């Protein structure tokens, strides 16, 4: 309560008043950097690259699950899936909006995606072959994404952090619906159980790769940590995901395709087998099962829509209200 607080200096604090501070002081005090603040060019560039890549992942990520909207096996599942894929478009848009506060245009970022100069998460270069894959993506891929994203809600760049808060809030249903799909399948007919196990077998390792290369092979991580963009190392996050997921797999009655998974009493964590990072490198290089297909789909949609975007601009120019902008 206000009257219990000492005067003067504290009042300044209550009102959110701060002396102007330099970038480094801001970071040291765990403050937030806002769009018009001065910031090192490297910080800005790193953020643009990371946020854009994140946005692209949401947008390309619409495809593997969108692939099953027309075939969802019940109307309830169809509605959930449409809403989920829609959320991914929304999340992409929140992130592009955050990137645009750094002085880049979304059109340029999309152009870099379309021409392969900016990447998206490799996980979306795997195909969704069965309905159970929709469950595996929700449970494992969204599960891994949430582990990655929760710390980003405290990212040093304000607009990115705020977008992540919104996204994390909305995504809480994504992982749950995936788990629910797999739970239904793993408690269903033998064919459904096989379908669920097969999906988990195919998505487990790619999901672990979503956390990126191991820490000693992740050259930019240290700088990102120093800048408060990244809060935990790749391996720490990966471990957190494994620890979270192993008991969930048991609840599903499904096996994770790694015989080396075992509880390690000393570490207080689950041990797991070595990850084949040459596979990750291959997919990043463009040799995943769906790289060309995903990009071609996105480019096609963009090109097919050009006449529509041009028409809307032309209409706006013709019908611009004279008062618009002056009111």
């Amino acid at each position, binding site marked *: 309560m206000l009257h219990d607080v000492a005067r003067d200096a504290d009042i*300044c604090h209550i009102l959110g008043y701060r002396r102007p501070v330099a970038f480094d002081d801001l970071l040291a005090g765990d403050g937030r950097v806002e769009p018009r603040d001065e910031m090192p060019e490297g910080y800005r560039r790193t953020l643009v690259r990371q946020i854009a890549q994140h946005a692209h992942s949401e947008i390309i990520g619409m495809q593997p699950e969108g692939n099953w909207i027309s075939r969802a096996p019940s109307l309830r599942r169809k509605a959930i899936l449409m809403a989920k894929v829609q959320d991914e478009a929304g999340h992409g*848009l929140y992130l592009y909006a955050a990137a645009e506060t750094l002085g880049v245009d979304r059109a340029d970022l999309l152009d870099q995606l379309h021409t392969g100069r900016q990447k998206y998460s490799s996980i979306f270069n795997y195909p969704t072959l069965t309905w159970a894959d929709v469950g595996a993506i929700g449970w494992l891929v969204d599960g891994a994404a949430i582990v990655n994203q929760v710390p980003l809600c405290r990212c040093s760049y304000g607009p990115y952090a705020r977008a992540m808060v919104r996204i994390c809030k909305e995504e809480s249903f994504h992982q749950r619906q995936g788990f629910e799909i797999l739970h239904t399948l793993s408690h269903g007919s033998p064919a459904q159980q096989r379908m669920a196990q097969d999906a988990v077998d195919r998505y487990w390792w790619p999901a672990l790769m979503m956390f990126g290369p191991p820490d000693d092979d992740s050259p930019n991580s240290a700088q990102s940590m120093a800048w408060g963009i990244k809060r935990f190392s790749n391996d720490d996050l990966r471990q957190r995901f494994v620890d979270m997921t192993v008991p969930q797999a048991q609840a599903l009655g499904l096996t994770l395709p790694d015989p080396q998974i075992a509880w390690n009493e000393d570490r207080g964590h689950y041990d797991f087998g070595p990850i084949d990072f040459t596979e990750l490198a291959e997919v990043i290089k463009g040799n995943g099962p769906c790289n060309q297909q995903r990009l071609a789909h996105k480019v096609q949609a963009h090109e097919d829509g050009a006449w529509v*975007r041009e028409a*809307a601009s032309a209409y706006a120019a013709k019908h611009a209200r004279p008062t618009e*902008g002056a009111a």
Partner: protein
Amino acid sequence: MRDWPLWEVFVRSRRGLSHVHVGSLHAPDAEMALRNARDLYTRRQEGVSLWVVPSTEIVASDPGEREAFFEPAGDKVYRHPTFYDVPEGVEHL
């Protein structure tokens, strides 16, 4: 071709509260901006009213002028009720 113009979106989450900035979007004109804002930012009943403003129309203070803008308010502590001493036992003041 360039993208459609950028618009800033403000949502009133319920009656009695102010509109709050929630993000931005692209739209060819004001009418479409409002509709896109509805579809993008109120999917989960986040709002009862929307504003969209062309981003280029927002005039913002310069962080470099923060001292001149905001520091002079810092020592005017007499603007706050806690500045004043009130004798024990006096209420409703």
